[in-house]
């Protein structure tokens, strides 16, 4: 039973527009959420995180939103740039656990 789901395997967005990547989770015990970005043939790179006591965290062009009642996490990228084209993974864990549970990833393509 998959605990973390990214239901959109791919997403295409025009350069300059907003990219919205979504993630749903089933384990209400998760209390820390992360987004990673992965280019082909490279390891994932940490992007942004949020703890369950918050509903929003912003870092430059990246904003993560957490809706605990819906068990839903989203990543907004605005404005989208060609270098944002990559696979994005959401991941969840518990404080002090450090073992991450990853989603299957969403491939984002930014169209120039």
């Amino acid at each position, binding site marked *: 039973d998959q605990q973390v789901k990214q239901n959109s395997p791919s997403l295409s967005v025009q350069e300059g527009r907003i990219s919205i990547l979504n993630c749903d989770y089933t384990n209400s015990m998760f209390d820390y959420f992360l987004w990673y970005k992965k280019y082909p043939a490279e*390891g994932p790179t940490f992007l942004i995180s949020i703890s369950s006591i918050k509903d929003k965290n912003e870092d430059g062009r990246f904003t993560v939103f957490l809706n605990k009642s819906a068990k839903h996490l989203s990543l907004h990228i605005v404005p989208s740039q060609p270098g944002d084209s990559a696979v994005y993974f959401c991941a969840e864990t518990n404080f002090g656990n450090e073992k991450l549970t990853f989603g299957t990833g969403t491939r984002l393509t930014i169209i120039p």
Partner: protein
Amino acid sequence: EADIYQTPRYLVIGTGKKITLECSQTMGHDKMYWYQQDPGMELHLIHYSYGVNSTEKGDLSSESTVSRIRTEHFPLTLESARPSHTSQYLCASSEYGGNTIYFGEGSWLTVV
């Protein structure tokens, strides 16, 4: 920026060969991890370590073994490689009590 290094980056070997994937980090992190990812699939934790002389099996069963003799070094070994071991292997590390895991660039293993 994470300082975690994996070698080899790419390897093609024959069935039955023994292979060791090297992983080193210079951040002094206590915790280290090995994840496995097949194309288009989730990252699965196969091994982790809390520190020197500590090794644990991850969520996904693996025929590989690991050792942690030094804090900075966490090699993964396959005694007899099979085509089913063809995958990307990602090493990662984190601070004790930290929730962000930092990944190396990955090792692509192909067993023919």
